[in-house]
């Protein structure tokens, strides 16, 4: 029972990341009709926004401490972060400690700008080209972006911890009447789940309850008719690209303490998230979210030792097995709509 509860929590946690990335992918596909293989790279850039802010807040000046020596035996250089010198040690330290949550604010304008630049600079030239061309150009863009990140940040993962206040674990076991420490779950992962739910809710509310969202939904259903009504739907879709980039970006920022960011983390998520989108149904936002959580949970359960002993290697293929089954039984995915990618 404890194992099942823990794997359920793991699944919700993994599913949160899948759902957030797949949501952005589906938004872009639904509005612009573009299959964006660079979306994983946007998630990765988001994580590196957290790394960048952390590095900026840690920018330091050096003073010589004659009593200590460095590895070459020279007088040691002691580094003091500027923020600690400017705002006092306590507040300066708190700023550095909270760099990941602060990076959400830092990343949103950056990610929107990245989204705009990608859409206006490259992807808009491929709207009327076949999906194969779009996949090739966005995949190439993803590789370029990850190599740029590697050039500046190196190939090794970079530790980006959560604030000290969230470093512990919550004991679900004690709360539910089990033995203490049997069902514990890290605070930050719980926060990530809550954050994902909040972002997903906000995106759905924005599309459902605002005039802008209504126009976008109308454009997704029938772009031509909305255009004939005199509405500049292209501009709105560009904004949606920026929004999708921001969603993936903040998902990456919050994921940084869970997995130390590295330049290929986007690629690791990309293929999985495409499977999520296909399983959920191309162009379906609720489908993407539901499939994200479903596949996250299934992936988690397939990693259980009992399951692996029955079906060795199942943890590595479960997502693709589910995708095959869904596509055979429901070719449009769980919530796919007729006519999407079926021309």
């Amino acid at each position, binding site marked *: 029972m404890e194992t099942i509860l823990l794997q359920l929590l793991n699944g919700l946690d993994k599913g949160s990341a899948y759902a957030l990335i797949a949501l952005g992918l589906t938004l872009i596909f639904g509005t612009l009709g573009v299959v964006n293989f660079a979306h994983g790279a946007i998630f990765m850039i988001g994580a590196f926004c957290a790394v960048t802010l952390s590095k900026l807040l840690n920018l330091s000046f050096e003073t010589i401490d004659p009593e200590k020596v460095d590895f070459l035996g020279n007088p040691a250089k002691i580094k003091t972060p500027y923020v600690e010198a400017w705002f006092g040690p306590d507040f300066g330290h708190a700023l550095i400690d909270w760099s990941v949550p602060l990076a959400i604010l830092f990343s949103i304008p950056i990610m929107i700008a990245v989204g705009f630049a990608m859409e206006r600079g490259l992807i808009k030239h491929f709207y009327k080209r076949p999906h194969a061309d779009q996949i090739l150009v966005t995949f190439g863009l993803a590789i370029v972006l990850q190599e740029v990140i590697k050039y500046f940040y190196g190939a090794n*993962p970079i530790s980006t911890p959560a604030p000290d206040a969230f470093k512990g674990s919550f004991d679900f076991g004690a709360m539910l009447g089990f033995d203490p*420490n049997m069902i514990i779950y890290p605070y930050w992962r719980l926060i990530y789940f809550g954050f994902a739910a909040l972002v997903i809710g906000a995106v759905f509310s924005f599309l459902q309850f605002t005039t802008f969202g209504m126009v976008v939904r109308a454009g997704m259903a029938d772009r031509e008719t909305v255009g004939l009504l005199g509405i500049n739907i292209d501009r709105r879709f560009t904004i949606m690209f920026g929004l999708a980039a921001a969603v993936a970006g903040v998902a990456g920022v919050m994921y940084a303490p869970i997995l130390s960011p590295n330049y290929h*983390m986007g690629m690791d998520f990309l293929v999985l998230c495409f499977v999520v989108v296909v399983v959920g149904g191309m162009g379906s936002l609720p489908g993407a979210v539901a499939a994200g959580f479903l596949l996250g949970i299934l992936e988690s359960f397939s990693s259980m030792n009992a399951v692996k002993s029955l079906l060795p290697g199942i943890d590595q293929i479960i997502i693709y097995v589910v995708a095959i089954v869904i596509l055979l039984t429901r070719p449009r995915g769980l919530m796919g709509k007729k006519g999407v990618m079926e021309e």
Partner: protein
Amino acid sequence: MSKTDLTRRSVLRTGAVAGAGLALPTIFTSGASAFTNEPMGGTVTLGFNVPQSGAYADEGADELRAYQLAVEHLNGEGDGGMLNTFSSKVLEGNGIMGKKVEYVTGDTQTKSDAARASAKSMIEKDGAVMITGGSSSGVAVAVQGLCQEAGVIFMAGLTHSNDTTGKDKKANGFRHFFNAYMSGAALAPVLAARYGADRKAYHLTADYTWGWTQEESIAAATEALGWQTVNKVRTPLGAGDFSSYITPVLQTDADVLILNHYGGDMVNSLTNAVQFGLREKMVNGKNFEIVVPLFSRLMARGAGENIKGILGSTNWHWSLTDAGSQAFVKSFGTKYGFPPSQAAHTCYVQTLLYADAVARAGSFNPCAVVEALEGFEFDGLGNGPTLYRAEDHQCFKDVLVVRGKENPTSEFDLLEVVEVTPAAQVTYAPDHPMFAGGALGACNAG
């Protein structure tokens, strides 16, 4: 109907002349060169095959720095580094046997096929007489096999799998780096002394050759001291989030988690294990402990504070105070501004050892170099007295047991040496079962 003069005798005669004509260039070539890529002019070319792209690119960059430093020192530039402390004194800073050392580089991409392709190119197009480098056992085994076929020497870089000098050993291949068996033999007594002999271990293991041999080695060494192995779980390479492999540990009565992971997998699995509160957990009345048998300082940085107090092993560390280590750290640190990694150290040492073997043999012929390296005993290269064992071409030397430092004084000061395990304690018989199944074979000079 036309008449032809074709007879059996004329066909034989024509064939013999044509055959001799075709064979002529080969005869001249083989007469001119006694072995593959024999250096003819005033230079000799070495091939540095390191990961310049992919997940181990930072480690590869550090290896390349070390190789460039070694070339400088061999050519008599810089401060000489470990040439000043090396017990063998045949290298005089005038290249190798008077030939200036030049080098070419290849990118292994940490993929066996790419590594073989780049090594092949350096041998066939650039005339490299020796190939060295790499940051993965899969790559090392693949390139070692290629070098054996091509007739050049392979001086392995960072490769820790038992197989490199076990079932996949080759006469033309040599490994200075330690191996998984040695990690187990060095680490187990320290673990037993610190954590007690009554422990239950749970292994998470990277699902490929290196992970398997490390799991086997550590389990055998700890079980011999009384530990129980509760479970061995294989994890896919590059799994990313290891939470679904970590949480089942909570449901067992294991009180030690052994992470047979390296690189990004090590960073992620260790970070996840700490996030799930394993280090604060009490099981069987004991503190839960995490062990990372193979530590890399470059990789440890990615795990940040999570490595504090974690025990592991390493081939070399820049904080060692012997004359050789200090000379190398001074050379490297002065040139690049930071201390070298263990990958840089082993690559630098391998280059010097190759050059020294050539100089002692008086020939670049791979078979002469093999003979010079087999059974060679040396000192002054940072690991104390060392033997290049003839039977398997594995170096036997002291192994360092290290721990993540609680109060680092700099970004490089992440590990502290808790014990230097003597070479005798990590030495095994050449026919040890963990290394069985292969044979060196005969050296190949091409």
